[in-house]
């Protein structure tokens, strides 16, 4: 059983993730290669998520 304290300790990680997402989104706005980066990120991220979910589901659930 995961305690509330352990769960709350993950909040900085989540805020870190939000910051990274925000930085990536903003950097694609100001970059000259906006479309290219955006396409790469939006294309790659769902597949990365799919791989991680598949591996995690098999190894843990």
């Amino acid at each position, binding site marked *: 059983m*995961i305690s509330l304290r*352990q*769960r*709350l300790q*993950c*909040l900085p*990680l*989540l805020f*870190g*993730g*939000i910051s*990274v*997402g*925000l930085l*990536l*989104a*903003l950097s*694609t*706005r100001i970059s000259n290669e906006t479309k290219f980066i*955006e396409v790469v*990120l*939006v294309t790659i*991220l*769902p*597949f*990365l*998520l*799919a*791989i*991680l*979910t*598949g*591996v*995690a*589901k*098999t*190894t*843990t*659930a």
Partner: protein
Amino acid sequence: MIGTIGFLVQDTSNLWRWLLSASLYTIACLSTAMLLGFVLGTLGYFLQGWFDHTIFVYAALPHAELALIGLLAVAYAVSDIGLLRLPRPTLRQAVPITWWRWWKPYGAALVYGAALGIGVMTRIPFGAFYVLCAWCVVKGDAAYGAVLMGTYGAARALMIFPASWGLYCHRSAIAAWLSGPLFNLWRAQWILAVVLVIFGTLILVSTVLS
């Protein structure tokens, strides 16, 4: 999960039988995962036309469906670390163990693979699965859905090869091995939550700024 499947595909007397049952499991898992993606993509294709004409938010925010996916991803990331309760619909809590007893080894490898490839036949502790399903619907492309969920199914199925080999090599210390870092649910949940929140924020901010 991997303990059960690892044993399932190893319940054989030689290398070729193990390879056959593991391959059957992989093919079935991959096929049903691709089928799920295909169905979700097709559903999205038909829903898109309906959404275009009925949802008023489109007038104010183009690509509102992407913003919703972003919000969903962030919400499920928070849910994964246990700070928010969100629905996690499944058809069953687990694949019945009786299937293994009835059809082992090859039939069981096939039905386990098929059931696990769909995803919703077991408890789902990772919100990323639902976000991926929603992403397939939003994309509205059956081929894309099949490839994306096929990636999920392949990652899920192919893990069985190194894992069952590990079980074989560590047969005398299975309990210790199963409680090792690879099998830590909590760690996997927060790692996926961080990736999910990056994905969600990126989609959300990109949509709002575009």
